[in-house]
């Protein structure tokens, strides 16, 4: 029961970009399309879960003074793995995500979970925590990506969604559109959570 909560908290209570406002750089940069958002999200789930598991299992061996250095090495290794795998198997998405895959290293969600959760909890709880937070992050990326893609290009995952004469509102695909839509979503989420 308690373990289940470690998983579900990432989906709403600690929802990374909207509730605790972390990991905003990728959410602004890679959500031009739902597909890139999904690719980024899957990368984050992989890195977060794996690094949480490893860090949690070595939490009693690693000395306190050098823990951050150790965490970063582990996280960077998994990020490099994601980069290599995406290059080998999902090259078009790799091309679109570009620099933002290596930048997962400095995504504060991942180091934050390593420091705040995985270094203090058991392996299974850490794995569920990583999965939950990562899944919540992916859902947020896909949600924002879908909103921006449907308004900015008239498609979702590349499939036409709008009527034929639709002239896309390309503002949403640009940087200001990312800020505006993120701000509006944050506002809506806050309004909803205040009510409940």
């Amino acid at each position, binding site marked *: 029961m308690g373990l289940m909560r470690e998983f579900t908290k990432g989906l709403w209570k600690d929802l990374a970009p909207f509730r605790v406002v972390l990991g905003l750089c990728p959410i602004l940069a890679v959500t031009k399309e739902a597909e890139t958002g999904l690719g980024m999200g899957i990368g984050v789930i992989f890195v977060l879960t794996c690094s949480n598991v490893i860090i949690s299992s070595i939490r009693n061996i*690693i000395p306190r003074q*050098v823990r951050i250095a150790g965490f970063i090495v582990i996280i960077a290794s998994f990020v490099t793995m994601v980069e*290599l795998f995406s*290059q080998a198997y999902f090259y078009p998405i790799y091309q679109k995500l570009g620099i933002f895959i290596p930048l997962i290293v400095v995504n504060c969600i991942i180091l934050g979970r390593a420091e705040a959760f995985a270094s203090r909890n058991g392996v299974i709880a850490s794995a569920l925590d990583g999965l939950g937070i990562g899944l919540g992050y992916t859902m947020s990326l896909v949600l924002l990506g879908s909103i921006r893609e449907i308004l900015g290009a008239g498609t979702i995952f590349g499939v036409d969604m709008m009527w034929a004469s639709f002239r896309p509102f390309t503002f949403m695909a640009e940087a200001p559109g990312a800020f505006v839509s993120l701000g509006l979503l944050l506002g809506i989420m806050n309004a909803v959570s205040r009510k409940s």
Partner: protein
Amino acid sequence: MKQVIQMAVVLTLICTICGAALSGIRSITAERIVYQRLINVQGPNVEDVLKGSENDLIAERESVEIDGEEILLFVGKKNDRPWAVAYETSAAGFGGELTIMVGYDLEKDKLTGLKIGTNSETAGVGSRVTQDPFTKQFKGLDIDLKFTGGPCPVGVDAISGATVSSMAVSEALKKSVALYPKIKEAVL
């Protein structure tokens, strides 16, 4: 003292294990990455500079050794006879290595086209050299390139504000043209 040793040992262990894992994965994926790059980056460029070829350019790629360096050649064929060849060369750009794919007409000894492959030029400034208005200028140039002091050969206007990137393209092109006689020999 014991603590210091523990720190050093643990960190070294972590780094060693991570390094080993990464090099393993790299060697597994290396071949596939080259292949993916071939299809996704070089492929479209080859198709573009060798437009009019009737064969499958990617499948019939071949590799030759020239001056001890391995070069991947794409040979375009018409009526089963090679009419053009394309290959990549690179030079240092503004933000890192810049590769170009140049196609040559084997009969007329002219450029059939030039496309920019991987590069890390500044978006919006240097990256303008990757766009058609710039690269289209190279089409039809004679292989006997003339330079009169400008960053680009005669007949090509450099991009203002992106001199370094324009020069990188020219540098890579010079290398490419220098290789051409030997490559022509190897193909025919």
